[in-house]
């Protein structure tokens, strides 16, 4: 059940009376180029892949498969999709089998990112399943000679009032589901839900707690060999010399692969490959250049780089003006995704066709990039998503897939498994970009914010594949591919400016995005993108302004918040936390509050927290956090709770501890000694997540909604506990202590 599923085309076609689901080129084209502007927009990813059989397949024997182009990354959406399909099709949960991203089997849903899985793919499956059910009823109506309204569905069959029963397997005919989805579906009444909205145990967990094959790291194809890459010591380093003869003679070594600055070794066994990698690294001589910026002056480094400036929001009401003004600058360092399992991929090159098993977040774009790198046609490259360790954004997954492909091409016929070493993951993954925000606002006589100025300096937040030049291996090859020019991600979702526009209502407001094209460090998408720092800045500043206005932080937020669902989560979190105006915490402790709606489009999240600060050491510990979340219709409440708990814990670790370190040449945070993260001694006493369910409302992505509010809530609690405002992330023990002692 949990092993990577490899449905090959032949097996699918053997399915007898089943539908053809394999993506013929013609079909894929038809899906990608839907007639311009004609049809009304279909819900979720049905807009890009409108055929129902792209999403659901029913075999003659009644087996049902749901297809998603999204990748399970540990968020548990595979279970949620199974719930959705089962609910809308009126079959038991167990009757559905979910197949995830595979360039040969599933729709092109781009990247699994931005908390879009539920919105895009979940919505597509929801509607596709509802429409398939309607089609099955219509089919049964025809066969039984009854009106559709008189039929009902239950347990995988259509049932007539007289008790006659036709199973889905019997009803499905060759092309029944090969129709385009309608813009509207007849969805079931949420009040009747038996599977959606319930805490169904996740399907992937049993294998993970018993040592089953659960990850790409666990794949063992027959004849598989192991490879390791030797990465340059720093960005842009050139391989001057490398005598690999001795390495080639080491036990088990099959081949040393060298292509320009790309260096790797293949061996029979994994530890042989590692030993050979160490020997190869020792033999390699590199020429390095000193071109990294000053780690402790990122504020000036970033604001000093050329930027493209745009006003992304402006509102003015000359009748309102402020009396008291506050200004503040907030910074965020480069931060690592830091998966516990270093990135891994398996590649197999046979008969001029490349297959790569990968935990990429985008099988199609990564296929595009790998094909370009190998100078192969995309059609002869297949990428199959297999779950990996949690990724939290664009980490080394795509790069190691490219490494594996490049190495496998040098050893045709043998599947090659490549896993990065810890040091490689830490030094080479694309980091979450450093950012600077400058805020200025004033308060009017009535204690409201009269004008608001927000400026953010940031790189792009996506250097994801699509182009070969995004892949390390392609950058290091002798015929190197250039890194493509970075682009700001478009609003309303945005990148560096994600959540830069406040959800609050201010009479005068202006938000400026300074997009910085130059990327001194390798960067890309990290959970929340710009929202993490922008929400941290806005919500810290809201507290500072509440102080200026002499107002309670929660009440001050509500004063400026019109969105009723936003108000609901704020009030819910405050109430469940026991938030009271002027409540005094025990000595050494503080309370903090923060709120955001992720991207101003996705889930709402408010978090209240209690933090203890040790005034001797400066160490801060989150004691408890209370979150309220509205992510629309809830599919799996326990899954959602798990995501929010995780978001709070991870954001706490980012916020209190984490920064990438580097000198003028090299990245120096290359393991858990040099890039410390949360350990158990700092784990809170409790975290409570309260869900505001919205039956019948659209799904709102929630995987990233907690990052910003958790950060600001903790920062506000620290300020409350110490009376000192810290504006530079991370809020380390040393910084807190220095602030206390200042």
């Amino acid at each position: 059940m949990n092993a990577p599923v490899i449905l090959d085309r032949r097996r699918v076609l053997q399915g007898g009376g089943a539908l053809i689901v394999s993506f013929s080129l013609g079909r894929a084209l038809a899906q990608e180029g839907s007639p311009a502007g004609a049809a009304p927009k279909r819900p979720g990813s049905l807009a890009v892949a409108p055929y129902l059989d792209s999403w659901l397949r029913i075999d003659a024997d009644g087996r049902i498969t749901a297809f998603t182009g999204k990748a399970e990354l540990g968020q548990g959406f595979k279970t949620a999709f199974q719930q959705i399909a089962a609910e809308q099709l009126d079959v038991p949960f167990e009757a559905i089998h979910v197949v995830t991203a595979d360039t040969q089997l599933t729709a092109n849903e781009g990247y699994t990112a931005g908390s879009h899985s539920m919105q895009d793919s979940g919505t597509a499956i929801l509607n596709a399943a509802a429409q398939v059910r309607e089609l099955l009823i219509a089919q049964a109506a025809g066969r039984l000679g009854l009106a559709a309204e008189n039929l009902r569905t239950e347990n995988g069959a259509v049932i007539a009032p007289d008790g006659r029963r036709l199973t889905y397997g019997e009803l499905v005919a060759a092309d029944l589901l090969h129709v385009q989805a309608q813009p509207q579906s007849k969805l079931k009444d949420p009040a009747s839900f038996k599977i959606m909205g319930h805490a169904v145990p996740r399907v992937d967990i049993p294998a993970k707690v018993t040592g089953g094959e659960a990850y790409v790291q666990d794949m063992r194809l027959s004849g598989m060999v192991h490879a390791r890459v030797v990465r340059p010591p720093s960005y842009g380093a050139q391989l001057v010399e490398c005598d690999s003869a001795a390495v080639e003679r080491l036990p088990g070594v099959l081949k040393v692969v060298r292509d320009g600055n790309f260096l790797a070794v293949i061996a029979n066994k994994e530890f042989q490959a590692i030993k050979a990698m160490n020997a190869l690294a020792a033999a390699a001589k590199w020429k390095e250049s000193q071109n990294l910026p000053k780690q402790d002056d990122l504020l000036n480094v970033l604001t000093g780089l050329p930027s493209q400036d745009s006003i992304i929001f402006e509102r003015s009401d000359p009748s309102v003006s402020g009396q008291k003004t506050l200004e503040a600058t907030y910074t965020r360092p480069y931060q690592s995704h830091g998966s516990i399992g270093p990135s891994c991929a398996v590649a197999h090159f046979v008969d001029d066709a490349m297959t790569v098993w990968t935990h990429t977040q985008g099988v199609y774009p990564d296929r595009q990039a790998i094909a370009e790198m190998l100078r192969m046609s995309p059609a002869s490259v297949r990428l199959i998503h297999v779950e990996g360790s949690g990724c939290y954004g664009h980490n080394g997954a795509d790069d190691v897939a490219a490494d594996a492909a490049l190495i496998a091409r040098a050893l045709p016929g043998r599947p090659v498994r490549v896993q990065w070493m810890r040091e490689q993951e830490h030094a080479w993954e694309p980091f979450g970009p450093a950012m600077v925000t400058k805020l200025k606002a004033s308060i009017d006589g009535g204690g409201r914010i009269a004008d608001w100025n927000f400026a953010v300096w940031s790189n792009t937040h996506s250097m994801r594949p699509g182009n070969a030049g995004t892949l390390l291996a392609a950058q290091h090859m002798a015929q190197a591919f250039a890194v493509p020019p970075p682009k700001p991600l478009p609003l309303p979702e945005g990148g560096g400016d994600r959540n830069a526009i406040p959800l609050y209502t201010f009479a005068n407001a202006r938000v400026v995005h300074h997009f910085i094209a130059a990327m001194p460090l390798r960067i890309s998408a990290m959970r929340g993108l710009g929202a993490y720092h922008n929400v941290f800045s806005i919500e810290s500043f809201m507290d500072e302004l509440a102080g200026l206005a002499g107002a309670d932080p929660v009440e001050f937020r509500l004063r400026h918040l019109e969105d009723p669902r936003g108000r609901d989560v704020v009030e819910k979190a405050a109430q469940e936390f026991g938030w009271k105006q002027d409540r005094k915490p025990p000595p050494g402790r503080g309370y903090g509050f923060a709120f955001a709606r992720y991207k101003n489009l996705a889930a709402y999240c408010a978090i209240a927290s209690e933090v203890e600060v040790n005034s001797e050491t400066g160490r801060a510990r989150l004691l408890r956090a209370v979150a309220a979340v509205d992510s629309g219709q809830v599919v799996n409440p326990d899954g959602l709770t798990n995501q929010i708990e995780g978001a709070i814990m991870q954001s706490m670790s980012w916020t209190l501890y984490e920064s990438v370190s580097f000198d003028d040449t090299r990245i120096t945070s290359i393991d858990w000694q040099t890039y410390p993260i949360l350990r158990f001694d700092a784990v809170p006493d409790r975290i409570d997540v309260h869900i505001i369910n919205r039956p019948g409302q659209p799904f709102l992505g929630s995987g990233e909604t907690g990052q910003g509010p958790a950060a600001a809530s903790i920062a506000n609690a620290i300020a409350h506990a110490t009376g000192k405002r810290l504006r530079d992330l991370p809020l380390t023990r040393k910084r807190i202590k220095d602030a206390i002692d200042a």
Partner: protein
Amino acid sequence: MMTLKVNGQDNQIDADPDTPLLYVLRDDLKLNAAKFGCGLGQCGSCTVIVDGKAVLSCVTPLVLLKGKQVTTLEGLGTVSAPAPIQRAFMEEQAAQCGYCIAGMMMRAQALLLRNPKPTDAEIRAELQPNLCRCGTHMRILRAVHRAARLMDTADASANARSGQ
């Protein structure tokens, strides 16, 4: 060639004596649970039990294991017949990506073997070497507490069955 007892079975291992146990388990014995996380003894994702103690298999070379008994997560139970610790983690849904979880479970199991009723503080202190990046900590703690309760009742019922 060396004999290594893993999950109760003797295996003939053909690997250099400096090979860390982790690679022997994954590569030679095709076991999945112990994970490579850092290879440096910094993260705990490779934790297994050796002679009743939680050990980082990535920094435990084969040469240290002569005559010792290795237990991995696979040796505790299966999906259909899970050990108490496995049941507890399933019941608490204590995983996100789950990559760290096998190591967490083995360290917790070793703790419960020597201290069947650990306090919350003892569990936290014990798990200090193990990292989780997904932030599943609250659930992991709950699952370990639950496992302790399950083992307690399992022991009690086993004792009842055997008439003790």
